[in-house]
């Protein structure tokens, strides 16, 4: 759990069956506040799905509906093939909703023992999960004495207790220090391997970028974009500056086609091209007698995409 040099797992090449599915899911409070607006969402088995959105976008409301905590105003949802909040669904789902809540007068160990009784899992799982989140040394201390980070770890342990097929984690790194965040991030990546599905909501874009195979961006209760990180980013651009500019343009148009070259002025060009062709293009320019003064790939960050899509800096 300590290695911080993580990279997000590759996107699943083949999509499994849908473990979370919503159709026109809406939640309206009163007559005017639409928290979730006709949401169509599909999360496939084995994915680590990132649910991104600014504060108040409807992430937590959606998660609460998926867990059966709140009833939708309209639309339908299916979680692990069953209606949210039913025993058939709950037994296969581990979840953290906002800040993990436990009984303050009991130890972390007893809180997990309690959940083990409810879920019908063997007590040996309690020690295993506490060890997994590195809470064993404080396991016998009262929950009320835990730091926010420890509470979050206990929440993750509780979510893992029944070895769920689907993990729903609402802002799981809240309150954690950088090391704790890295640990949880690594843990989630580990958990997301194989057939287990993870649905994670977050406003920490760098986290989502590292962990998730697919991302949905929600704004004002609606999904405004969905896809893999690469799909959301779109094609990378290569910026080239060279003199003489007209000769550079001739070479670039010949190499990548006129539709992929945009003159930026000042001898600069933007190219829609595969990053692997950078060296080849540079070589052609130099061979043609162009003095290349600038050459770099521009890749849009998830943060750029997020701000474009939501028109906000959200929780950044």
């Amino acid at each position, binding site marked *: 759990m300590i290695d911080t040099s993580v990279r997000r797992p590759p996107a699943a090449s083949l999509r499994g069956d849908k473990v979370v599915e919503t159709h026109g899911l809406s939640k309206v409070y009163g007559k005017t506040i639409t928290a979730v607006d006709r949401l169509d969402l599909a999360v496939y088995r084995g994915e680590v799905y990132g649910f991104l959105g600014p504060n108040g976008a409807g992430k937590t409301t959606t998660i609460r509906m998926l867990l059966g905590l*709140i009833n939708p105003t309209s639309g339908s949802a299916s979680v692990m093939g069953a209606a949210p909040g039913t025993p058939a669904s709950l037994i296969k789902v581990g979840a953290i909703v906002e800040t993990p809540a436990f009984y303050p007068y009991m130890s972390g160990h007893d809180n997990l023992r309690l959940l083990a009784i*409810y879920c019908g899992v063997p007590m040996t799982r309690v020690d295993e999960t506490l060890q997994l989140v590195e809470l064993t040394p404080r396991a016998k201390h009262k929950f009320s004495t835990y730091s926010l980070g420890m509470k979050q770890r206990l929440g993750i342990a509780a979510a893992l207790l029944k070895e769920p097929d689907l993990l729903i984690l609402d802002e799981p790194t809240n309150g954690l220090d950088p090391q704790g965040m890295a640990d949880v991030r690594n843990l989630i990546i580990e958990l997301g391997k194989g057939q287990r599905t993870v649905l994670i909501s977050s406003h920490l874009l760098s986290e989502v970028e590292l962990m998730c195979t697919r991302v949905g961006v929600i704004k004002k209760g609606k999904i405004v974009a969905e896809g893999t990180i690469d799909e959301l980013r779109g094609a990378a651009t290569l910026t080239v500056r060279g003199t003489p500019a007209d000769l550079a343009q001739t070479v670039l148009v010949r190499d990548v086609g006129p539709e992929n070259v945009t003159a930026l002025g000042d001898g600069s060009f933007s190219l829609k091209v595969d990053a692997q062709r950078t060296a080849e293009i540079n070589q052609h320019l130099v061979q043609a007698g162009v003095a290349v003064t600038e050459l770099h790939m521009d890749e849009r960050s998830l943060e750029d995409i997020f701000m474009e899509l939501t028109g906000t800096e959200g929780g950044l």
Partner: protein
Amino acid sequence: MYAAFRGELFKVVRRPGIWVLVGLFLGLAILIGYAITYLIYTFPPAGSNQGLPPGTTLSDFKVALYPENVVKQTLSQWGVLGGVFALIVGVLVQGSEYGWGTIKTLYTQRYGRLTMLFGKIAAMFVVVLVIVIGLFAVDAASSWIVALLDGKTSSFPAADVFLKAIGAALLIFSFWAVFGFGLATVFRQSALAIGLGLAYALVIELLIFGLLAGLGGGIVKSIQQWFPIANSSYLSAAFGQVRLRGVQGQPAPYADATHAVVMLLLYVIAFTTLSAWLTRTRDVTS
């Protein structure tokens, strides 16, 4: 539902607040019901015999503290007031889940909301049973000590009387516990539920009917017979009164024990149903 019940028992057994409350109640039962009363009857302050029936002294009242009267004494003293403690238990068991936000943890484990709710109510009844048995146990022990101190020979009521009395107290206290549980469910918190519950138990019903009694006793009593505190009193009174020399007994209760049992059962069912309906239909937002 057994897992839900086991889980709830696991929680209440480990919850200090519940047992502090139970301990406080049993302590008060000994202190107010026997210790202080015994001291006053044994060492009456000067002039305390004024106003008593001719030929009687305060020490004559000590008969109420002897084992033969333990059932009557316990029910008449705590039949209504003890319910307040059961009400607080009911509020704590349910209201704290909202306060701590654990209601969402509870409802995202394995079973549906109603299963978890009924498991919780069943565990609450266990606590109420412990309170009731504890009450009769400490009162019986106290009465035995009083008789011993006074060198009196007095025997306990028959076992079946004890069992019926425990059943009656269990029903009365269960009503109060479910009432508190229902209030906590309605308001999704403990503070307001305890406040309103205490206001009802100590003021509202007694005050309103006390004032209305001035308008016409018969009509008021015919209305009052449908309310829970009145029925708690009828049920307690069904076990009889302590006979004190020279003191006129209370009039017979307006309704009999059967009426009281049916009414209290209906209240238990009504508040359980209300809690279940709210739990099933309402959003969990804490």
